């Protein structure tokens, strides 16, 4: 099949259109869904096409509308709810954790909650501590929820369709900086599984298990590492709950070295679960202690200058790989450092000019 290149944001939009065409019980609601900005462009034209009875803006009532979507889901609709920032979901934890996650368990058949919640995580220009969090760990801990974090345009489409078709509540997390990435996206309606990680680059020396946007930095690092004859294996984790430990373990059997990359804080993050799971099941294969590369345990600062040390990027990934391999050649280390982006690091690229 010839390549058909779409951005991640376009892939999400296409998935939404196709899912709504496929099943007329799918509805979409979120603050800004039908507005001129259309959730970073991911819902453009949706209300025009499917009408105001299937595509809704919403009052600023995150907990209430989450509950309303649970009720609508119990009644047979398949709501897709959208948050412009995951930070706003903290208002809805009661409905998500006490209700959505428990309903099927409590009430069995007839109480499935086919609810999908899209939320945008991560960095933006000057968003600061209340608008740039990566809270996947809070959901990853909760039985009864599924949590996915696609990192490619292909998965963005396929997993969103998969999430809408799934009968469980699914939290679908999009890193702000992934929206612009592009990739091959078939035009047909396809659902990707909500389970399973994917090895996206083969290598025998170090396993990199990467979540969400950190996959992009991993790839940048791996390309340079390859020029140094260092071959890393990269796993796109894709799913936070249930975690696919098998794929990680298989890779570790080969490499014996583990680097976990997450967009969130370290302590109590999902990166800890990966390290713990690998240690429990494959300690004998580990050649050295695993390493986590994450945010420091601090709220996100706003000033551009402060974000530079806050967010690890490709050079930190490369440096971590070198340390795992005990490579201390100064030339090589300098090469890793040279991966550092020039210019402001509070934007994904120079096209990004705020104000959002």
């Amino acid at each position: 099949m010839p390549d058909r290149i779409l951005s991640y944001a376009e892939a999400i939009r296409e998935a939404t259109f196709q899912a709504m065409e496929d099943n007329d019980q799918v509805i979409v609601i979120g603050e800004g869904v039908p507005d001129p900005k259309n959730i970073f462009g991911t819902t453009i034209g949706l209300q025009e096409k499917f009408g105001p009875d299937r595509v809704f803006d919403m009052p600023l009532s995150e907990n209430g509308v989450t509950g309303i979507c649970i009720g609508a889901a119990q009644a047979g609709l398949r709501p897709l709810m959208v948050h412009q920032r995951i930070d706003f979901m903290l208002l809805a934890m009661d409905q998500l954790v006490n209700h959505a996650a428990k309903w099927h368990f409590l009430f069995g058949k007839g109480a499935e909650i086919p609810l999908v919640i899209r939320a945008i995580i991560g960095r933006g220009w000057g968003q600061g501590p209340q608008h740039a969090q990566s809270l996947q760990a809070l959901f990853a801990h909760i039985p009864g929820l599924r949590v996915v974090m696609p990192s490619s345009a292909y998965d963005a489409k396929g997993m969103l369709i998969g999430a809408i078709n799934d009968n469980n509540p699914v939290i679908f997390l999009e890193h702000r900086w992934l929206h612009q990435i592009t990739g091959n996206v078939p035009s047909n309606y396809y659902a990707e599984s909500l389970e399973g990680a994917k090895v996206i680059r083969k290598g025998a020396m170090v396993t990199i298990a990467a979540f969400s946007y950190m996959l992009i930095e991993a790839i940048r690092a791996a390309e340079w590492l390859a020029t140094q004859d260092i071959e890393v294996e990269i796993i796109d984790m894709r799913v936070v709950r249930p975690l696919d430990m098998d794929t990680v373990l298989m890779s570790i059997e080969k490499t014996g070295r583990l680097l976990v990359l997450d967009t969130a804080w370290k302590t109590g993050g999902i990166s800890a679960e990966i390290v713990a799971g690998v240690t429990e099941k494959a300690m004998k294969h580990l050649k050295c202690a695993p390493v986590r590369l994450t945010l420091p345990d601090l709220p996100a600062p706003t000033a551009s200058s402060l974000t530079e040390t806050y967010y690890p990027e490709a050079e930190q990934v490369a440096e971590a790989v070198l340390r795992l391999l005990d490579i201390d050649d100064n030339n090589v280390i300098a090469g890793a450092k040279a991966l550092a982006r020039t210019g402001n690091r509070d934007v994904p690229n120079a096209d990004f000019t705020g104000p959002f």
Partner: protein
Amino acid sequence: MLRIRRIEEAVAQRYHEQEMRCPVHLSIGQEAVAVGVCAALSDDDIVYSGHRSHAHYLAKGGDLTALIAELYGKASGCSGGRGGSMHIVDHKIGFWGATPIVAGTVPIAVGAAWAAKLQNSSRIVTIFFGDGCFEEGVMHESLNFAALHQLPVLFVCENNGYSVYTNLQSRQPHRSISALASAHGVNSISGDGNDVMFVNQQSSDAIKRIHNGEGPQFLEFSTFRWLEHCGPNNDDDLGYRDEGELASWQERCPIELALGQLNASSVALDQEDVEKDINAEIISAFNTAQCADPPVVGDYCEYA
């Protein structure tokens, strides 16, 4: 109503045997609201409730044996033994769930009503809740959404003046609950929740208004809980309620009131016969529940 009273009394009476191993919030004294509202509903209509839900479940037609089995933690319980008294359900009769996070089921009910509207169903959704709900933000978010989208939902507030041991005046300022609902743009009525005829009349009228496209309706009924907040006992000796308050409400027992109304309208009713039937049904339900199998360990994994 009498049946519900006797069932709740039986739960209270046998609770000390410690075979119903879950908190129970009994409805004795508040039966008229459940019965009056549910009698106005169609089979197809949906009901949600909260922690104090036995009466709502039974009034909507819930299976007695499945309720008692649920209290006993049995596989045949209405929630498969995973829920206990605080989490009950019966999809067959349109009882879509009761759970004990205060106000937690309110938005869920509004969502079911939203679905009914979007799916062009004529069903309406009723949500039962207590006065405490008005302190929870999500109650207000739910009223706002229901009014905004003009949803077919009937809000029923059982105002019994207390949340656990705390009276209403310690939790809410001096203002009316139904007036606050009105200010949200939801048409509201308040009145005597111990008069089943009144409750039923108001419910029927409100349901008519919903079917007429007048949007969500709100009913606030004053009533009183006779027993302790949670558990089988009378705890009036603790002194958290005014002296004589319970007695004055007991004088206005919803069942006595209803019997009086029936007599007045000279409907013949052999109370003794009725009591006998109810008693037999209750004994059988408890026996069945007690003998039933516990849930198979591990079976419940499929639901998470």
